[in-house]
């Protein structure tokens, strides 16, 4: 249905300048400058920019909410704000960051911009559907913002029944409707990527010549398609429960509130990999480029992406060990969760091996990538702590969990996002950012992040539960430390927003390939022309065809 809409519709494309006359005016940014040309564009690159602008806005909202949370926790007795205000702040932080920043962050911006370039295509398979997905995203965002403006939500981003259905007196319905709608935008993006990667590759671009970034997005898109519909159903049932008391999650009628958690985590655990896999894709591009060396173990890293995307559907119950699921289910889910370690280890060790004997430049993107590897390792291994049943009984729902997933979401996804943003900024905008400012910000973020979140591991093991507006006084020192770290982190976030915007007008003009990197996106102009390539790009002999290649390159790719 949705596919048919865009297949034939693009038969009559608007006339554009002949490619021979391509000059300053013809790149995708300057080809046309009316508002209409932006808001009705079907160019994947412009849609990526629309997404980038929107998710940056949501990042700011979510970050302000995080600041409110850290502010409240400076004192143990809740003197700064009421419990309700605090609860709303962490709910807004979670809802906005998860659904309106992290999930669309890398796929909808970098994925949208780069996948067609990397595979040598003119656009995604369904350009109109791509634009639709942005409008759907904004429609969902509208409902969630309405709930925020009317007074907020206090259920936590997890919306557990029956608190969200029968007990909360806040604006739960518009928030639920917004999140449900946003799911459709994810589905449309994922569908577009899957079809594009299967059918739109340039002649000669076989699967094992694709950059890992594309592999990672393919795996992510499969999760979009296979997991998102289930959360849609779960949220529809939740909306019906709240609106019409249908009873399926209401114990008063014999319904089972734990069933909501099953449906919720069937999506929301794989959603972690929606956030993590694209970041891994970004790191797999940055590390070889700044080591000038072929990615070590390319095939293993590629398969590991698909492996992670599959294994992740078998482990959701590790969020529910103490939530009343059967002991058998806990045992099975715990055992399977350990399997996640395999593909994750593959990635980390291969990145490290890629750096070995490389020729390293420690520019901003590489600093982010190295920070990513360290923080992701810590986040991943603390995940195994949580998957261990006996340990989980103690640290479930404590600050240990908060620290763990922030190491994955911020240390992982946000650092990869910022690394990728600096790496491809010249390609997106045609301008170079300020390298010294970039390095300073990267260091600030790395330090600020660790000061903020490492104390939370200790707080959690000491037994401080999460989502607490007030807490025992003996936890104050570590909480103040965490809040202090958050101010450093905030500074680290503000600088890039300033110097990147500054560079749009005053930055040095970027050459087509400022990093001497490999990959088809560097074979075209910065910024790329409207239809990506002036002449069909030549697909290289092997992927990551960098000057330095380890022995294994000859073993695996002829």
């Amino acid at each position, binding site marked *: *249905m*949705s*596919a*048919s809409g865009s*297949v*034939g*519709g*693009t*038969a009559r*494309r608007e006339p554009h300048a002949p490619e021979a006359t391509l000059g300053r005016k013809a790149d995708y940014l300057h080809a046309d400058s009316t508002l209409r040309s932006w808001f009705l564009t079907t160019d994947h690159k412009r849609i990526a920019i629309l997404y980038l602008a929107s998710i940056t806005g949501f990042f700011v909202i979510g970050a302000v909410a995080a600041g409110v949370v850290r502010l409240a926790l400076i004192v143990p007795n809740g003197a700064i704000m009421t419990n309700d205000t605090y609860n709303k702040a962490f709910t807004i932080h979670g809802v906005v960051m998860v659904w309106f920043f992290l999930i669309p962050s890398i796929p909808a911006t970098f994925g949208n911009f780069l996948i067609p370039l990397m595979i040598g*295509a*003119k*656009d995604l*398979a*369904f*350009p109109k559907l791509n634009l639709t997905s942005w409008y759907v995203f904004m429609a969902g965002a509208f409902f969630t913002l309405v709930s925020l403006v009317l007074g907020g939500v206090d259920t936590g981003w997890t919306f557990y029944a029956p608190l969200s259905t029968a007990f909360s007196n806040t604006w739960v319905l518009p928030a639920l409707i917004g999140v449900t709608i946003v799911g459709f935008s994810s*589905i449309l993006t*994922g*569908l*577009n990527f*899957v*079809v*594009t990667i*299967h*059918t*739109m590759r340039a002649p000669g671009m076989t699967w094992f010549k694709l950059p890992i970034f594309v592999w990672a997005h393919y795996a992510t898109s499969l999760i979009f*398609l*296979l*997991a*998102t*519909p*289930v959360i*849609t*159903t*779960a949220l*529809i*049932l939740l909306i*019906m429960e709240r609106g*019409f*008391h*249908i*009873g*399926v999650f209401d114990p*008063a*009628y*014999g*319904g*089972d509130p734990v*069933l909501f958690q099953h*449906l919720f985590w*069937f999506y929301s655990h794989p959603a972690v990999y929606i956030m993590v896999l694209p970041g891994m894709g970004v790191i797999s591009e940055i590390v070889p480029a700044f080591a000038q060396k072929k990615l070590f173990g390319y095939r293993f890293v590629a398969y590991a992406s698909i492996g992670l995307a599959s294994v992740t559907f078998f482990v959701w119950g590790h969020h529910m060990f103490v939530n009343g699921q059967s002991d058998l289910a806990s045992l099975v889910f715990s055992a399977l969760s350990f399997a996640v370690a395999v593909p994750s280890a593959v990635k980390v060790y291969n990145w490290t091996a890629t750096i070995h004997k490389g020729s390293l430049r420690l520019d901003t993107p590489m600093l982010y990538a190295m920070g990513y590897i360290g923080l992701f390792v810590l986040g991943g291994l603390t995940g195994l702590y949580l998957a261990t049943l006996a340990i989980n009984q103690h640290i479930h729902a404590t600050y240990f969990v908060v620290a763990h997933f922030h190491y994955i979401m911020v240390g992982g996804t946000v650092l990869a996002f910022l690394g990728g943003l600096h790496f491809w900024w010249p390609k997106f905008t045609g301008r170079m950012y300020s390298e010294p400012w970039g390095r300073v910000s990267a260091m600030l973020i790395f330090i600020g992040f660790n000061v903020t979140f490492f104390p939370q591991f200790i707080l959690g093991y000491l037994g401080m539960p999460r989502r607490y507006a007030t807490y025992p006084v003996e936890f104050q020192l570590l909480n103040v430390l965490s809040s202090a770290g958050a101010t450093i982190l905030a500074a680290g976030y503000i600088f890039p927003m300033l110097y990147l915007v500054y560079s749009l007008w005053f930055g040095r003009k970027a050459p087509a390939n400022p990093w001497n990197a490999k990959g088809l996106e560097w074979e075209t102009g910065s910024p790329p022309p409207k*239809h990506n390539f002036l002449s069909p790009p030549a697909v290289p002999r092997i992927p990551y065809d960098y000057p330095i290649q380890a022995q294994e390159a000859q073993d695996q790719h002829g």
Partner: protein
Amino acid sequence: MSKELADGVGVARAGHFETVAQQRAAATLGIWAWLITELLLFSALFLVALIVRIQHPEATVAAAKHLKFWIGATNTVVLICSSLTMSMAIEFSRIGWQRAMVRAMLATAALGGLFLVLKGYEYYADWDEHMMPFLGSRPFALAETPPARLFVNLYYVATILHAVHLFTGIALLLGMTWMAAKAGFLSRHQNWIEVYGLYWHFIDLVWILAFPILYVVNR
């Protein structure tokens, strides 16, 4: 074999595709990817139905006995007929018989409409028998067994969600029929019919699953 196209029937290439074959492959893969999401959307509801059945077997059976079994069965026949007319429309489009194709599409839309009318009558009969527990103002016939409410409400969520898909499908089909009646349609957009046909068959398939899961196995 059955997918050969007659002369003058085909697809006009859109600018961002290199070949028509690529464009057709993308459309087919795209609709299948969409259908995967539809399957999981409904399957999650079926899973909830199964859990309700496991936790409250007696109440579920009591509730299922109140469903209008024969209307459900008749509606299944109606949808199977509409699948036939949709298949015919696809075959006509392939051999270039535009008028026959338009008539088959109209017949499909009409059968879809008949399904919705019967479904509406079924809802009316349910209302009449006090089988709408989500209505606060109207007492529920099985109020003495609260878990019966779960199954009945789930029946409404599932069937309304299906009806929404069917209604959207009919609207798209009528819009497409209007375009398909114009000259030259089959030489430019024949694969719209194929892609749409997959969607229609799948909505049929969802009902083929929903009918036994809701009406039959719990009796």
